[in-house]
């Protein structure tokens, strides 16, 4: 029985055991991609490298059998650097979008294709949850947002973009209907949120415009006690006092503010907070302050007791922290003349940062994941993307000007969506490792990325551009490696159907495919 040392710890294992298994025995997990427990090692990805200090070589731990006297290091800089390079290489040929371009363009980063799939599937409650996860005032924004997301919408390359904004409005309006089956209850909204890290803390929010309302919505949803203070008679800020009435009927705004009120948020209207003494008082009575007063007083931002520059109050990117650690600022006080959706996005980020701060965790704001991006489409790619979408033209709502979708129309329009996001975005090993190792798609430049291709079976989507050639599905099913060298692809023999090639191994393949190359059509 060979004895070896892993990260300085000595261990004795059975003959024939791999270094990976020996490390697991010590509770050390190593990254793997092509490894399929129970099957012979394939040794293709090389992500599992560790260093054998005896020979000075990097070896794939999933394949290397232990040997007497081995001295293994699994987490040195050198090893981590090597793994990063492997990921950089894989990413340089990766053809896929983790998130859909509409989502990455949306300032609030709403998961648009998920919302659309939910609408298409009649899961309206879920669709509302998806929207409100990022957008606090969806019925309002569904009417006034200039929809930058639609400008990025891939469907626009074929005919016209998906009516994202109207679909969002539909999801919100349905949920807010007085007689809706599932009106957004405070409990329901809270359930879908992360519980507060420090629930007994109190937060003051200066200004009831879109940024302040959004911050209040997310903080209250988590369970914080929030008080919104505003000098006006009614909450809404610019939404109430600047936006044209015919675009945004007041009852829509009122109903969305009601949702926030029901979450337990206190509104102290007709209350003007003086930049000096007023703030000091709030600091003494509250645990954190959200500064979202807008620009109703012209250029007066520099009066607030925090650092500012020529444009507005200075905040840290991502966390919206001001020079005063207790104060977080967003909306127009930071940067004038922005879209309401951006102000709403600020509110969400601020809520997140405050929760981190009050919970004593590092304040980083919303977590950024790794994003693989297709970028500019190549010739023929839009055709691949159209494969599973309704070919019909953009659906217009019925009724007078300014009307929203009926359920039928909304479902019809949502079928036009190409589902550009990756169906494994939330459980892709490649993406997770890319985050962990700080890998990037830009290191190995000069790359001509592979063409985006999509094959669809009744249940499974296969996108070879996301395949890392780990060979797992080839080992499990009737799929085959085709070609050689850089051009090697995984494919279906003889151009038969994907379904027949996967056969009874479909579920196994989808589960074990480390990327979104093989995924269920429906969200897991």
């Amino acid at each position, binding site marked *: 029985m060979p004895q070896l040392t892993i990260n300085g710890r000595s261990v004795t294992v059975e003959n024939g055991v791999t270094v990976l298994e020996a490390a697991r025995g010590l509770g050390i997990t190593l990254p793997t991609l092509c490894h399929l427990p129970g099957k012979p*090692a*394939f*040794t*293709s*990805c*090389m*992500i599992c*490298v560790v260093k054998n200090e005896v020979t000075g070589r*990097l070896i*794939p731990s999933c*394949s*290397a*059998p232990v040997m007497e006297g081995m001295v293994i290091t699994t987490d040195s800089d050198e090893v981590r650097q*090597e793994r990063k*390079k*492997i990921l950089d*290489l*894989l990413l*340089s*040929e990766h053809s896929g979008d983790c998130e859909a371009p509409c989502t990455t363009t949306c300032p609030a980063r709403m998961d648009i294709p998920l919302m659309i799939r939910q609408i298409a599937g009649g899961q309206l409650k879920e669709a509302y949850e998806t929207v409100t996860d990022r957008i606090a005032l969806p019925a309002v924004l569904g009417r006034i947002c200039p929809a930058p997301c639609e400008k990025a919408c891939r469907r626009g390359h074929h005919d016209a973009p998906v009516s994202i904004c109207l679909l969002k409005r539909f999801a919100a309006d349905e949920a807010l209907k007085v007689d809706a089956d599932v009106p957004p209850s405070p409990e329901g909204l809270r359930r879908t949120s992360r519980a507060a890290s420090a629930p007994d803390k109190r937060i003051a929010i200066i200004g009831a415009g879109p940024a302040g309302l959004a911050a209040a919505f997310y903080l209250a949803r988590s369970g914080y006690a929030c008080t919104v203070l505003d000098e006006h008679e009614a909450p809404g800020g610019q939404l109430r006092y600047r936006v044209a009435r015919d675009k945004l009927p007041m009852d829509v705004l009122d109903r969305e503010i009601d949702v926030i009120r029901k979450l337990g948020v206190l509104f102290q209207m007709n209350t003007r907070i003086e930049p000096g003494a007023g703030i000091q008082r709030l600091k003494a009575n509250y645990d954190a302050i959200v500064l979202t007063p807008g620009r109703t007083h012209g250029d007066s931002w520099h009066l607030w007791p925090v650092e500012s520059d020529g444009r507005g109050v200075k905040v840290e990117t991502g966390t919206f922290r001001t020079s005063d650690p207790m104060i977080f600022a967003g909306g127009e006080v930071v940067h004038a003349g922005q879209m309401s959706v951006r102000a709403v996005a600020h509110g969400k980020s601020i809520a997140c940062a405050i929760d981190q701060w009050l919970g004593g965790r590092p304040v980083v704001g919303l977590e950024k994941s790794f994003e693989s991006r297709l970028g500019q489409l190549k010739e023929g790619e839009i055709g691949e993307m159209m494969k599973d979408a309704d070919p019909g033209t953009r659906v217009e709502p019925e009724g007078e000007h300014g009307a929203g979708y009926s359920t039928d129309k909304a479902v019809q329009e949502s079928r036009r969506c190409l589902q550009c996001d990756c169906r494994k975005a939330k459980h892709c090993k490649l993406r997770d490792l890319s985050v962990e190792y700080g890998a990037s798609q830009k290191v*190995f*430049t*000069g*790359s*001509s990325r592979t063409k985006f291709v999509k094959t669809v079976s009744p249940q499974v989507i296969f996108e070879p551009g996301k395949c*890392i*050639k780990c*060979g797992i599905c*080839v080992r499990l099913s*009737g*799929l*085959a*490696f*085709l*070609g*050689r*060298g*850089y*051009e*090697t692809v995984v*494919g279906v*023999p*003889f151009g*038969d159907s994907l379904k027949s*090639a996967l056969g009874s191994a479909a579920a196994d393949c989808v589960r074990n495919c480390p990327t979104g190359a093989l995924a269920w059509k429906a969200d897991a």
Partner: protein
Amino acid sequence: MSEDLQCVDEAVAEFGRDASAVIPILQRLQQRYRYLPEAALRRVCELTEITPAAIAGVSTFYSQFRHKPVGRHIISICHGTACHVKGSELIQDALARDLKLGEGEDTDSNGVFTLERVACLGCCTLAPVIKIDDITYGHLTSQTVSRALHDFLELEKRGIVPERHDRTAAKGAGLAEIRIGVGSCCEAGGSQSVRRELEAEVKRLGAAAVIKPVGCVGMCHQTPLVQIITGGGEPVTYAKVRAEEAARIVRRHLKPGGIVRRIRAGVDTVLEHLLTDDTWEPVSRYALDVRDAPVCSFLGKQKRIASEWCGDLDPLDITEYAAHGGWTALKACLKAGQPEQIVEEVTRSGLRGRGGAGFPTGRKWAVVRAAPGSPKYLVCNGDEGDPGAFMDRMLLESFPYRVLEGIVISAYAMGIHEGFLYIRAEYPLALQRIRAALARMESDGLLGSSLLGSGFDLTLKIVEGAGAFVSGEETALLASIEGQRAMPKFRPPYPAESGLWGKPTAINNVETLAMVPWILRNGAGAFQEMGAGSSRGTKVFSLAGKVVRGGLIEVPMGISVRDIVNEIGGGTPDERGFKAVQIGGPSGGCLPASLGNTPVTYESLAAEGCIMGSGGLVVLDHSDCMVDLARYFMTFTQHESCGKCTPCRVGTKRMLEILERLCEGRGVKGDIERLEEFARTTAGGSLCGLGKTAANPVLSTIRHFRDEYQAHLEGRCPALKCRKLVAYTITEDCIGCTKCAQICPVEAITPAPYRKHEIQQDKCTKCDSCRQVCPSNAVVLGSPGVSVDKEVG
């Protein structure tokens, strides 16, 4: 097509239903249909255990297999190293133009010819080379290549089908002997038609002479070679003999006194001159060319072990092999009955594997011998994929019995009873000879059960490779024999412990095995005496490229690179001498002339960023661009990567992209450093030797020729090789003959009789045609900042 599928049933009946039968079955189908029709493949799946996934995977992995119907004839354009440096890209373009092929097309609209890129046809001394079906054309230019097409069609019209005959000529005492080279280079040079003419003339005269085919003579640059030995007289050698001249040569010797035409070496037969003197010089003093040094110095520093009796042996004459010491080693080994002694003797000799890695052969044998498990297997690796090498091919073709004797001895030494010879399908002659030699040995009791009455059994089988460089890597080779895609596996376990079907397997290179009989006949000491450091004995190289005398050479280890090029190879045709030597092919590197004193040993070559490799040695002169060469090898490696492991599959591609942009003048600041970094990533993380060494051609050229990389970054190609970085212009020397305008395929030159011509740069495709036809050398090549008067060969 139902009756058509009969062939599938037959192939299955012959090769069996196991998964491992897939490659031979596919080869048989392709022979029949000339490509692989889907219906036939589906039928294979119906009849056998081979799955659609397996058949799709295998048939798309090996480049031998085609999935589309092809034209009536296949033109294989060699893009091996020697052919590349001699302009194979220009040949490719010219052919595509002649056949009017559009972008991405490979077959002309009439379905007559299909173009195919191949890596090394194994007759590098005739570079650049193309093969149309079985006929090889060498020394081509973009001008002469269309003549080759016409010549071929002419032959076809006249119904002249090239045939191969390997009948061993009976030899009688007192007869004159006419030896004709039948090595690959000689055959490519047209030795079969010369041989037919020789035979016809001998018959017509009723002369007392035998015509004897001999293997490679090691003078491949002068093929076809004919040597005549008359009773008592000294042998006379003729070089570059043409079929029309064969009869006259025969008449000259068998009817003394006549006028003899001796063929002067030279590409242009117009330059042949008539010799009227009657004195015959012996071969050792025969001046092949006024510029050539005498042949004796060509052979001088050589020492022939694997290629012993080179030029004297009829490859398939087993009696003759025996008469030259053949089988004595085997017989002695069997008689002694102490196999472990053989292993020890080989260990003592210091023999290291000649397949590239240089692993001590005796040590490998000892491991296999001691390994638990049975049966054990032996594999002779004859895959030879280096695109500028033909050593193993020559050994298999010219000395089949020697290789086989080595195999039998090693099998006996390790207690192995079943062996495989893995030989690439691109070597039809080698396959044919080995097949014939095996049959002869079986009938002579040198193989089979209780061979030579020793009680030792051995069966040997031939496995045909199907076109994948990586299948030369030992674990990939085993996968290939088992009928899989040739994808390497992680070692350990090494094949010596767990190889074919999980059993202990000894894999040795052809040349390694060809050394074995000599070592056992002459003793380990004699072998050990030659060489330097831990590199003992001799090494066979295929010498090609910009060298006067190319061919198969065998030299004692430790000889300097300069001696090989200048003394054995006769230097370069270009008077400035060699610029560098590429050693080791796609895994090797470029050794600059300034390091020409480097001795040929595993260690000293490695110290300079090269490797011994399997023995490809391509000489480069000043018209060779080092960046282009690096790009060339990376194209090869990238294409030949099995595509399995990340660093090699993706890393080689990324390096190639940088090299391509450098060669096209699109380099980006930092590209050289980027290349170095990508090289480290690829080399460090790859699974097998292919990926681990893929960056060597890049790193060694950066190391020794960094200034050339810098020049490319600035948009210049000092060697005037990179087409995107050069321009053709016409100088004042133009006499207005209009020849260039007539030949230009893209009308970039307007005819202007008696006036100086001009080239429209936006139209010019840099085909080089105008420069070749200009009678006054007025067409010149230039690159920004590089002097324009340079001759490019």
